[in-house]
C-alpha cells in the first residue's frame, strides 16, 4: 500500500485514526507492517502490500 492510503483508511471498528508501523517497504509502497488503532489498540496486518482491515472476527472466516 502507498502511504497516502492513510488519508482515507480508518479503524473498521470505531473509525478512529490508525498508526502505521512499517516493517518492509520499497521505493513506492509499504509491503509489510501493521496498522494500529489509536483508540482501541486493535492491530491490523499489512501483508504483501495489502492492508487487512477486516474486523478480527471476520479475518479467519475463509470459505473452503
Amino acid at each position, binding site marked *: *500500500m*502507498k502511504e497516502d*492510503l492513510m*488519508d*482515507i*483508511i*480508518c*479503524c*473498521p471498528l470505531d*473509525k478512529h485514526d490508525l498508526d502505521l508501523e512499517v516493517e518492509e517497504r520499497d521505493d513506492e509502497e509499504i509491503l509489510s507492517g501493521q496498522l494500529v488503532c489509536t483508540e482501541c489498540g486493535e492491530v491490523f496486518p499489512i501483508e*504483501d*502490500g*495489502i*492492508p*487487512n*482491515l*477486516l*474486523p478480527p472476527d*471476520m479475518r479467519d472466516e*475463509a*470459505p*473452503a
Partner: protein
Amino acid sequence: MRGDGGSGETEGSGRPALADQRGVESVYQPAEDSALLARAVSERVDDGDRTLDVGTGSGFVAATMAEAGADAVGVDVNPLACQQARKRGVTAVRGNLVDPFRDEVFDLVAFNPPYLPTPAEKEWDDWMEHALSGGEDGRRLVDPFLESVGRVLAPDGEALLLVSSLTDPDAVREYARQHGLVGEQIASEKHPYERLVVLRFVRN
C-alpha cells in the same frame, strides 16, 4: 447475466453449485454486469476523483476508474481477490464493504454485489458462492451497503449500485430512501432471464 452454463452438481441438492455454474474458481471474473457498471462509472468519473470499488473481485471496475483518471481503491473480503486486483495495479484493501474508510472521502463508490437469490441452506460454501449469492432475497450485502455507504460519500459524492430485476430494484431504492439516499436508474440492459440496472444514489 450470472449462473449460466456449467454441468457440476452440488451433492444432494440436485442442482448445480453456483461455482460450478460459473465455471471459474475463487475470484469473480468480469461479466456483463461488470461491463455495464464499468461503462456507467467511466462516464461519471472525473480526473482526480477519489473513488472506491466495493467487492472489487478481479479489480476490473477499479481499473476502469483509474483509466478514467480517478485515484481508485478496491476493497474485497476475499484475500485472493485482493491479490488479483493488486496484480492488475489496483490499490487493494482487504475489508468489509466501506467499513475501513473515513467519513466523506469518496467522490464515487461503485458496487457490483452478489445478488442471486439463494436458499439459506446453500449459502457460503466457498469464495465464488460468496461472490454470487445474495441470500434469500438477493440483498444480503446490498442492504448493509446502503446502510453504510452514505457515511463515506463526499458531500457531492455518488454511489453506483448494480442490481438485477431478480433483486427487485424498487425495493432496493425504497430501502436506500430509508437510509437517507435518493436513487435513480441511470443504465439498464436486458438479458434472457433478467434485466441488469445501474442505480445511482446521492445523499438526501
